[in-house]
């Protein structure tokens, strides 16, 4: 236990807390910037078992902020979950790590939730966050929302049947947040979010409820702002995920994000349940490349792909037959 001596010296954890940490199982959804740093921290802290999920592989533009990866991972095009696992086992060979290279959906996630004590949100889009939200309410698993872009970020701890859930905070909002691929990001914004996420994780793992943060944190490191928002008021009895009669809309087949390869066209279609606000999307996309627009759709060329966004929530990604790749590109641009 010499390895964890400095963590055990921290009084709220101690030997008892360390023992608890070593018996817990945390699922980390996403192995990008937030996922890398969260996994690094939790592996070093001695969490007994980690499950890592990511659909993507390591690219050169990831190295600026995704702390588990090296140039070698880029050259070898290693899937992030696999590269992460390798590095984490070099850091801590005493813990158990399970890596899944897959797209997160209702059907792919559900079997992996058995025995999970806590989920770290390290996704890059709100479709998946709402899916997480509804699923973890249903299965009563706490999770920690985190997101970042530019020099800003946010974090919030969600306990089923207790705190307001993500839907309580955002339900009325047709969310398509700014993404790292549209407005950029600096690495300290990542770490700032993860510092909050990991601290909350440790509190939950040692079952120290009274220290949990009950506010949503937002910050802007470049402009020197830090803001805590109390959210008790946001809890809604009528919330479809955490209210009195939940129906978990994101778990309903009708509303899930669907994707299909369009035969012989080297194109993938993605269909979300939310309509797109094309004006706002246009403003965001114009930072990346020229956008063509008419009343019904907007289109953009990005890397070797062409994306066409329709108002009804459909998007065509031309230039690939891989659903994983198409989703990556889609969420990179549209959040």
């Amino acid at each position, binding site marked *: 236990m010499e390895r964890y001596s400095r963590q055990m010296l921290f009084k709220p954890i101690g030997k008892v807390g360390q023992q608890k940490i070593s018996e817990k199982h945390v699922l980390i959804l996403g192995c990008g910037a937030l996922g890398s740093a969260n996994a690094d921290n939790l592996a070093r802290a001695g969490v007994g078992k980690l499950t890592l999920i990511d659909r993507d592989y390591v690219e050169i533009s990831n190295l600026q902020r995704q702390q588990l990866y090296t140039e070698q991972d880029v050259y070898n095009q290693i899937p992030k979950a696999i590269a992460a696992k390798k590095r984490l086992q070099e850091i801590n060979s005493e813990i158990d790590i399970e890596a899944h290279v897959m797209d997160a959906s209702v059907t792919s996630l559900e079997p992996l939730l058995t025995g999970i004590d806590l989920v770290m949100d390290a996704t890059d889009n709100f479709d998946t966050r709402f899916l997480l939200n509804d699923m973890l309410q249903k299965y009563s698993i706490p999770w920690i929302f985190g997101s970042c872009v*530019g020099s800003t970020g946010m974090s919030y701890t969600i306990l089923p049947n207790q705190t307001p859930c993500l839907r309580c905070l955002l339900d009325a909002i047709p969310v398509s947040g700014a993404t790292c691929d549209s407005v950029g990001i600096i690495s300290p914004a990542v770490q700032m979010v993860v510092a909050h996420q990991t601290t909350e994780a440790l509190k939950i793992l040692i079952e120290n409820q009274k220290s949990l943060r009950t506010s949503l944190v937002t910050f802007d490191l470049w*402009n020197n702002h830090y803001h805590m928002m109390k959210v008790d008021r946001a809890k809604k009895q009528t919330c479809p995920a955490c209210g009195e009669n939940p129906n978990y809309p994101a778990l309903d087949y009708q509303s899930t994000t669907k994707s299909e390869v369009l035969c012989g066209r080297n194109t993938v279609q993605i269909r979300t349940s939310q309509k797109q606000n094309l004006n*706002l999307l246009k403003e965001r996309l114009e930072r990346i490349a020229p956008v063509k627009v008419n009343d019904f759709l907007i289109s953009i060329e990005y890397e070797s792909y062409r994306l066409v966004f329709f108002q009804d929530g459909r998007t065509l990604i031309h230039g690939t037959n891989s659903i994983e790749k198409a989703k990556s590109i889609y969420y990179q641009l549209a959040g």
Partner: protein
Amino acid sequence: MIHILLFADLQEKVGKDQLELEEESISVKELKKKIKNEYGLLQLDQVMTAINEEYAMENDIVKSGDTVAFIPPVSGG
């Protein structure tokens, strides 16, 4: 005077991270509408609002002396 904090991409559009507004009393909904029109801030349809560091609803009233934060949910990770 109402003090307004802007986060994430709201700043860029407005060109600063804080605003002052001369109002005695105004609903969150009206306040958003006003700023949305003045700065062409489409994003204000997609923000959380805090009054004095507490989550606020559309019909809550902001008074002179209050600090309002507009917090757009960012999605990167």
